[in-house]
């Protein structure tokens, strides 16, 4: 007579194992996502130089990302410059150095804030829309339909969006710079009584063309990163409407984080 011993039920992993597993899985997800974004970026580059050039799609995205963000970027830039001038002048007055308000605002805007804030505005306004639109197309199998019709979805859907992000964020950065300096001038000269000559001459003294180039380059990198992340998340969304919403949330978080991380890396490289 043979007896069969019942198989032992699988043992529940301990909390430590679960933590390590989650950490590892998260790490794998991050690296996978990064790899997926880079792969998609290479695809986008490859398809962007191949015919047919879909200029109508491209201009539609340029319009949506760039022109559509003018108002919010102008408003943000103006108030950023104003509040920055106000706060720095309060601090500089303690040391009798109000003349440094102009250069401080100018350097901060051109090197850092303009690019970062412009990219954040584009992420919130256009990035989320890109992600949602692509995710909806994915879950409703419109992307598959495109493939069925022998239309490459990367070329048709992603290339215009990524190029729009790449080109429009630097343009919006320049707009942010201008509006921010205008706001700072109004507050410093009109409100705080700093002489216009001092404001302009000291700004001119300390501001270098390299600072502006640096800001624009940052804007381009941020625009590329944000559009790639949003497109990637939306393009690979799954799980119906809920999946689309989750993908959009992840895209926003990842985009914002990438902006700040890239800003630090570029800042170290430029400095």
């Amino acid at each position: 007579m043979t007896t069969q011993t019942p198989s032992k039920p699988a043992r529940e992993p301990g909390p430590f194992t679960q933590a390590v597993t989650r950490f590892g899985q998260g790490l794998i997800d991050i690296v996978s996502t990064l790899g997926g974004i880079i792969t998609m970026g290479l695809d986008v580059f490859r398809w962007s130089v191949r015919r047919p050039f879909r200029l109508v799609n491209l201009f539609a995205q340029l319009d949506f990302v760039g022109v559509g963000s003018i108002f919010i970027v102008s408003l943000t830039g103006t108030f950023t410059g104003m509040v920055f001038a106000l706060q720095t002048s309060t601090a500089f007055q303690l040391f009798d150095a109000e003349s440094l308000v102009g250069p401080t605002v100018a350097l901060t805007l051109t090197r850092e804030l303009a690019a970062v804030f412009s990219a954040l505005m584009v992420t919130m306004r256009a990035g989320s829309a890109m992600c949602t639109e692509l995710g909806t197309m994915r879950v409703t199998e419109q992307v598959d339909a495109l493939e069925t019709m022998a239309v490459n979805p990367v070329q048709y859907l992603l290339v215009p969006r990524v190029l729009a992000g790449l080109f429009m964020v630097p343009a919006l950065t320049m707009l942010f710079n201008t509006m921010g300096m205008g706001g700072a001038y109004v507050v410093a000269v009109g409100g705080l009584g700093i002489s216009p000559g001092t404001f302009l001459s000291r700004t001119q003294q300390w501001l270098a063309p390299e600072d502006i180039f640096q800001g624009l380059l940052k804007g381009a990198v941020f625009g590329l990163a944000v559009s790639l992340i949003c497109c990637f998340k939306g393009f690979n969304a799954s799980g119906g409407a809920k999946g689309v919403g989750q993908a959009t949330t992840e895209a926003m978080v990842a985009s914002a984080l990438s902006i700040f991380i890239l800003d630090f890396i570029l800042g170290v490289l430029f400095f």
Partner: protein
Amino acid sequence: MKKLVTPFRVGLLVIAAGAFFVTFVLFARKGGLSDSESTKVWAYFRDASGLAVRGRVQIAGIPVGEIDGITLEGTRAKVWLKIRDDVDLREDAVVTKRSESLLGDYLLDLNPGTEGAPSLETGGQIRRVVDTQGMEAVFESLSQITADIQEVTGALREVLGGERGAGSLQRIVENLVRLSDSVDATVRRNADRLDTIVGNVEAISQDVRGITQGNQAEITRIIDNIEFITRDVRQVLGSVKNIVGTGEGDVKESVASLKETLRKLDGALGNIEEITRKVKEGEGAAGVLLADEAVGRELRETVQDVSRFASRLTDLQAEIGIQSTYLAAQGNSKNVFSVRLIPKPDKYYLLELVDDPRGSVTTEVLQTNPPSEGDPVVQTRKVTKESLKVSAQFAKRWYFTTLRVGLIESTGGVGADLHFFNDALRFQMDAFNFADDELRYPRLRASLRAQPIDHLYLIAGMDDMLNAQQRDLATRRLVAGRDFFVGGGLFFTDDDLKAILTLTGIPTP
């Protein structure tokens, strides 16, 4: 339409962003100095903290350059400066590091150097560097002061610290107590005497104050006199020493000469005294002149009158002119010689001698007595003669208008001139000969005078505008009525005449 609108909007954004970019870059570029418009020099600093690339370099608060670079050489900072080309840098230039604010924002003050020193070329070194100014220097001074205070307190601690020091302090205090007791006792013993002394001193000071208060001016004068006297005495002694010399013979001769001189001087003084006495008593012409008050007053008034007259004469300007015009209807010329006396710029007297071909008409009344048959008893005869006419007018100018009144061509008349273009053009109106019975209207003359160059003018106009022409039956000479004329003239001022006479000389008989 939709296809067009979208690219257009995108294009607008790109153009705006590009314009902002170019503006920003140009604005930022202007902040720096290019190599072509600057001189690049360098200086060593022991401490370059607070200095930054593109930091200001200024002279008298005016930016003239910027810091181009900072490098480390050994233990010193080599700071490169770009200075504007129009700054004349010399080898003895001085650069001073100075804090601009409490934040440690530093700038460089530049003294470009003296003119005598050689020029500092591109790549040259500014050797004189002051790099411990501003808050750094203040902190350094404070640090030194603190060290000094510490040194003093340390010395005090050494002197007064410990048992020995405490004993010394106690002895000093005991001595002070004894000394104060002794002073107190002395004062108590001699209190009356001290009161008396103080009272005396007070009385003396009151006397002195009374003297000085009432006679401050005298005292000041006395002191001044003493000062003058001592100075004079010093000069006299020096002069005596020079005159007398050092030898005994010289002294005798000098004394004899001095006596003789004094005697002559005494006589001269006697004469002067006699003269002054007579003058004082009003004797002689000089005495009357000086002593008589009425004569003096008259003399002063006379001198004032003479002075006023001389002033008028020196202010008076004269202008001499000649004018010749051709009279169209008359077929002859009219010549005028004029002298204009100008005591003030707005007033003048005009004297003219006029040679007028119309001549002067005189009416003679002939009475035949006894009357001959067939002839009237009284006959009237008009005689036209060629004679010079005289004008003498007084003129006064207000702004661009001059009014004249007086004798015009030997008859009473008035005139008015309007001046234009800084007196280069003159419109002239004369009205005269009001009393002539033969003329229906007074003689009215209008002319336009243009002066293209100095001293020369052209004139044209119409004479006797209101009356019809009348001619002498025998000679066909026009004796009345309108006539056009054209001509020119020359005039010279007295300054011109002086210059001409200086050059040509005055003819002597």
